[in-house]
Every structure is written in structure tokens, then in C-alpha cells.
């Protein structure tokens, strides 16, 4: 069973290539355009990895997140550029 990834970003031109790349690497990718949709998906199914934009309409991660989570998830890091390696 492949690793399941939930990709959350409000910029569809970022979601498209990133989910494509992740799928090419063999991940099973679901994507959401805002925080509420992401929450619905996360409740419905189980995911191994969540790639989350820190600033999302409907869900402001930064308000409840810790600094460590921020470092991992924020779009200020370069990690999203190599999602396959994650």
C-alpha cells in the first residue's frame, strides 16, 4: 500500500505540479484548496503525510501551530520543492 499524502494549498498552479510530482514518485495524493476542505478530507481518511500551506483561507495554522511545525510546514521553507524526498 502506497504512502498517502494530503496536499493543501490555495494556489492551484502549485498544487498541480506538486501533486503530479508526488504521484510520479509513487505517493497517493489528495489535494485541498483551503483549510476547511482539508479538514473534511483528513477526517474522512487517514494520511501518512500532510503537506500544508501555513496560511490558508478558513484555517489559520499559524495561530495554533508550534514553531517546529511552522518550520516544517510553512511555505517559507524550501521543502515543498522536493516533495518526493519527503
Amino acid at each position: 500500500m502506497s504512502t498517502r499524502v494530503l496536499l493543501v494549498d490555495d494556489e492551484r498552479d502549485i498544487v498541480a505540479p506538486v501533486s503530479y510530482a508526488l504521484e510520479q514518485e509513487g505517493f497517493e495524493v489528495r489535494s485541498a484548496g483551503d483549510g476547511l476542505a482539508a479538514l473534511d478530507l483528513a477526517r474522512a481518511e487517514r494520511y501518512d503525510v500532510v503537506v500544508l500551506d501555513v496560511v490558508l483561507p478558513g484555517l489559520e495554522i499559524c495561530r495554533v501551530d508550534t514553531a517546529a511545525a511552522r518550520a516544517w510546514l510553512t511555505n517559507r521553507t524550501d521543502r515543498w520543492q522536493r516533495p518526493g524526498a519527503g
Partner: protein
Amino acid sequence: MRWWLALAFAGIAALTAIAVAQVFGARSEAAIRERARDLTAGSAVTAALEISNATSVEEIRSMVADLAASRAVSLFVLDAKGSFVTPERSHGFAVRALPNFAELRSTALQGRRTVETIDHGRLVTAALPLRGNNPGALIAVARRPDLEAALGIVQKEIVRAALWAVAISAVVGLVVALLITRRIRRVGAAAARIEQGNFDHPLEPLFPDELGELAVTIDSMRRRLRTSFEELEGERDRLERLLEQLQEGVIAVDRELTVEFANSRAHQLVGSTVARGEQLPDPWPLFSFREAASSMFEPSATAHTMHVRPVSDRTYAITLLPPRAAASTGVVVLTDVSERERRERAEREFVTNAAHELRTPLAAIASAVEVLQGGAKEQPADRDRFLEVVERQTTRLTNLAQALLTLARAQTRAESIRLEPVPLVPMLSEIAENLGDAEISVSVDAHATDSVALAHRELLRQALENLAENALKHASGGRLTFRVVEEDGHVRIDVADEGPGIRATDVERVFDRFYRADGSEVDGFGIGLAIVREAIAGMEGTLSIESRPGTGTTVSIVLRSVTNGRARA
């Protein structure tokens, strides 16, 4: 002063008179005595000559009596044996009362002459030998009351003269003193005028003496002081005019916090009257201005600046300049740095937002290029899809770069934002179309179908796109409405979503981010809104936001309308 001088003159005159009286009295007494001796001796010699020629005792006696009467002298004649030929009393004087009678008699009988003064000069006695027909001795005694009288008169005259001298010298002294004191007073009055700061009365010297020289010196001092004061006043005037021109409030206070100077900008900044000669006010509840000012006068105080927020939306820089060692005046300089801080925050926020806006399309392009290179280019459908992403995001970047450049130039005034008539409805329709799958409607009120705003086409498009994108994020795919309303020479463009809305507290914050532009809270709602704000401000428009939870959020842009007659009709 003049009385003292008069008294001194009188005293000197009195001393002089006494000294003169002493010398003169002694001399006149001596002269009078000498004269008395000569007279007595003369009477005696005359009597002796006549007695020498007398032929009888009777003749001698009558002769002596006549002489004694005519010359007011007592005459006594003795024969060669020393017995009295004449009576022992003559002219009321008994010869035996003379203390030196025996001596006189023997001297004369021995043939010698003698003239003596006895009884403190009151009696002159003369004795001389008689020769010729009647040898013997003659004694003449002159009592001299007239001598005493003469001496008394002399002394009285001396006293009177002395009194006159004292009186005259006192008057002369008074006059001299009056003259001197009048001149000194004149100089003193001039000095007093100078002391009171009145430098306009010249002092002419009356005579070229020491007082005249003093007057000349004081007058030149007056002229130099006047020049110095005029220079100082001019200096102060220039300084005050300069201080009035300053953007900073300047207040000078003394140790008791009494205001010595305050320019009008200080009144404005402090918000209450800062009057010269009155106590420094303490106008702010959150910050004690007086306490800050009084800290200047502590011994260890040095010049320093503090930033305070005495009222909620203003920041002041308060610079305290303690008095120099000898002076007692400290200076407070107030600067309103609210605008500067706001501008700095806005600039920081703008840079952050601009970077953020650039980052998203760049990230999309980089991702698309990466997947293309990773194999997507081999499959036509995927290749086209990601090339479209690249194209779309490149266009977005180009527009954004153009907008930023225009804004930056406008901000540095290198190039003013050129406003032109922009028809709104076609532009809004185009934006709605470009935003793709979202359900977007453009509604226009009846009078605004041909609305033309005075705007910069690219900046307005950028602002509206940013607002629409932002609204769509919040609307969660719901409806977005552009509404154009004409109102009184202006045109309002509403960008209204039907999203969850923003909580009242957050509306404040969003509004905050629009206007207060706190750089640290830029993320979230505010992305791109700083650019919107800058763009609208650059087009001399206004921006406002209104939101109710559950109903949606409306952002309004108001621009000047280019009134179109046809549209109105």
C-alpha cells in the same frame, strides 16, 4: 554727602581760625606790651628831664602831679638817699604795693635804668636815675587797663573772625558740595538708567575734569552695552524665528519647570498652551511630561532621546537637553515621529508583501518546470497543462513587476502616477473572466453602466485582481460580486464575497493591516493588500472594508469619476 562736605569745610576753617587766633593773639599781645613799655619808659624819661631842671620840691611835686594826670601814669620821685620826695601815692597807686619796689629803687639809685613788666603784664614799671639839680631816682608805674581792653578786643575780634570764617567756609563748602554732588548725581542717574536697561540717554561731560572723564567712560560703556544688547536681541530674534520654522516643538524650562520659551509647534504637539512664565503642563494621562522634564535637572543627567506614545495613535520622540554647567535652562525637543514610524512600517510591509506576491508565481513556475523536466514533457497533455501554468504565472509576474515598478517610481516621485479615464465595466468583466472557474458576477447600478474612473489602468487592474483573489480565498469558491456605484462625482467599486465573513475583532485587524500596516502581522488576510492600498493611495482614491460574519466581506474602492453626460442621461 553735601552736609558732610560742608561740615568738613567748616571744621577745617575753625581749626585754621583757632591756629591763626593763637599766633595772632600772642603777637598782638607782645606788640601791645612792647608799646606799653615804650610809653611808660617815655613818660619816665620826660618826667626825669623836667625834674632835673626843677628848682624846688614843690615844683617837682606839682610837675609830677601834672605829668601823672596827663599821662595816666603813677610817678614817684626819690632823693639820692632813697627817701620819697613826692607822695607815696600817685595817680591812685601806692608804690609800696609793687613787689619789686626795693629792687627798682636800688637799681635806679645805682644809676641804672630798668623797665619791667609785672603782674602778668598788667603793670609796667620803669626806674631811672635822676641827675642834674635833683639827683635821686624816678619810678614810673603804668597800670594798663587799656592794654587788657586792647587784648580783649583783639581776642573778641579773632573769635568773631573765626566764626565768620567757619560760617563762610560752611556755606562755601555746601555750595561746592552741592556742585560736586549734582554732577555726581547726574553721572549716577545715567548709570542707574544703564542698569535698568535703558541705553538711549547719552551722558555729555560738563567739564574736562575727573568727573567729566568718568562721564565719558560711562557714556562709552553705555554705547558698547547698547551695541551688545542690540546684537543679542537680534541674535535672539533670529533664533526665535528659526525655532518657529522648526517641525520640532522646542520648550525651554528652568529648574522649577517654568517655561522660558516655547515655539508654536510645541503648543500643537503638547496640545495645550505652553505659556512663557507658567508651569510646564502635564497633558497626557499615560506619560508624565513634567517628570521627564524634571529628570533633566538631576546631577547625572545627560542629553538623551526617548520615544513615547502619550496618546494611542501618536509617537513622540522627546529629546532632553540638560542645562550646561552654569546655566539653569534645560531644553525639551518634541518630535512627532508617528508619520515617520508609520511610513517605515508601511515600507517594511510593502517590501514583505511584494516579496510574498513574487514568491507564489515563482514557486509555481519552478514546480512546473521541475515536473516538466522530470518527465511530464514526454506526455502532450501533461506538458500543455504545465506550460499553461508557466505562461499564466509568468504573465502574473510581469503584471506584478510592472505594478511594483510603477508604485516604486511613484513613491520616489521619479515618475508621478499618470491618471487617465478608465472605463470600469469592461475591465471588471475581463478580470471576472480571467479568474476562471469561480462564480463571479459583475453588477452595475443604473447610472454607472458607462462609469469611467480617473485611474491608472494597470495599477487599478492589479488592485482589483488582488482583492478578487483575496476574496475568493475567503469565499471558499462562493460567489464574488463586483459592483459599480456612481456617487457625487466619485465612483465606488465594491468587491463583495459571500464567504464566512470576518469576525468583528478580525475586521479591526484587517483594517489595521490596511492602514496601520504592522509588518509583523502581514500574513493571512493582508497578503497583497498593502500593494492594493499603495495603488489606491497613488491614484488619490480611498479604500475601506466592511464585513459581517455569515454574510460576507465587502472591500470598497472610491475613485474620482470622469463625469460622462451620456451615462447620466
